[in-house]
């Protein structure tokens, strides 16, 4: 039989989900009229505005930091770290917003696709959750340890976000392609 803690957790989770659902319903109703008739309409394909890889590498690069360190100027080091942190935080937030936008557009298209694949949807969703968690972790780490120490994880996030973007583009193009093949009059 299901334990007390599990039952309580499920009950509370359902309550929270219902409250979020009630709050989100208003905004969904407002957005509804902008939803396209065809799944995967390219007007809604939504791309992540990814920075060039060189720029991402540069934000988290240790090279500039090592150069500044050689000046032995605490004021300059502090200024550099503060500025670099702002740029890095802005990049992570933009990436996170882009990922969320891509997933929203994907969900809008996918919910009308009769031949949706459970496993593909699930894997995309897990990848999406993974990316959001990485973004949140990055935000925390940038705030606490600073960008120069985060080079590898940032490159990983960058690569994953590009993969999601490509996947969604492919989905949107193929669905829109199918729609254009259909005669417009009966």
């Amino acid at each position: 039989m299901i334990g007390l803690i599990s039952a309580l957790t499920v009950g509370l989770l359902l309550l929270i989900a219902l409250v979020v659902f009630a709050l989100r319903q208003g905004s969904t109703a407002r957005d509804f009229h902008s939803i396209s008739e065809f799944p995967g309409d390219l007007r809604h394909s939504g791309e992540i505005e990814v920075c060039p890889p060189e720029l991402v590498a540069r934000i988290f690069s240790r090279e500039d930091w090592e150069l500044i360190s050689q000046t032995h100027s605490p004021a300059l080091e502090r200024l550099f770290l503060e500025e670099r942190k702002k740029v890095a935080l802005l990049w992570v937030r933009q990436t996170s917003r882009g990922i969320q936008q891509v997933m929203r557009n994907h969900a809008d298209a996918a919910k009308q696709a009769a031949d949706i694949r459970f496993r593909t949807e699930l894997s995309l969703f897990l990848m999406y959750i993974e990316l959001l968690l990485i973004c949140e972790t990055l935000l925390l780490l940038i705030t606490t340890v600073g960008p120069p120490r985060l080079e590898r994880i940032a490159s990983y996030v960058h690569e994953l976000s590009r993969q999601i973007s490509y996947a969604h583009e492919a989905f949107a193009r193929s669905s829109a392609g199918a729609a254009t093949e259909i005669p417009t009059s009966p």
Partner: protein
Amino acid sequence: MLDQFIWWGSIAIETLLLVRGQQSRLVSRYPAFYFYIFFVLSQSFLRLYVYHWKPSFYRYTYWSTEFVSILVGCGVVFEIFRVGLRAYPGASRMARNSLILLFLVALVVGVAIAANDPRWWAQTTVTQIQRTMRTVQALSLFALVLLFLHYSIPFGRNLRGILFGYGLFVAGSVIWLTFAYTGGGRFRNFWFYLYPFLYDISLLVWIGHLWGYRPNPQTQESAQFERQYERIADATKRRLQEARSYLDRAIDR
């Protein structure tokens, strides 16, 4: 006095719900929901009759009607799924698969627990069985709500009310069944008033949302889409299969 007020309050709101449902023809749109309300109303009178005329059968009647009411409630969950996702075949398929997966997991866990402890049936109380059933119901509702959120499914006022009211009631029942029989008799009165009170709140949510017919936002546009969709179904299927390979390639990279 308070329990009488709560009890008669429920009867009055249930009757009003059924009358309004009949007048606004909502009964034909949400038959499972109105059958549930009708069942709960009937069971109240049945329990009242047994309580006064056959008190020795009351306990048996109470628990057996509770179990049937959970099963009838599953019809409400199915109706929320059916009506809410009617215009969204993709989201509907996701919901169906998620629910099947969920029930399979619940079944496997249940069988595993039963296999480990052969005496579980003798030791398990009626409350524990009821809590388990309500928890599985709460889990399915939770999975559905997550899907509605993920796919931004717009709900009409009527369906939103049914989901919100029934969800509140099920979540409240799970929490109530967790606490009511634990912690001694200290908060017993509180928990025993809370359960029917929670149901009254759900009834008020329903009466507020189901006073008249309000269509789901997708109904009109989806009708147009469905007509086009029938013609595009074959072509879309082929393209979606291509999209799957793109997706798999992209993910496996």
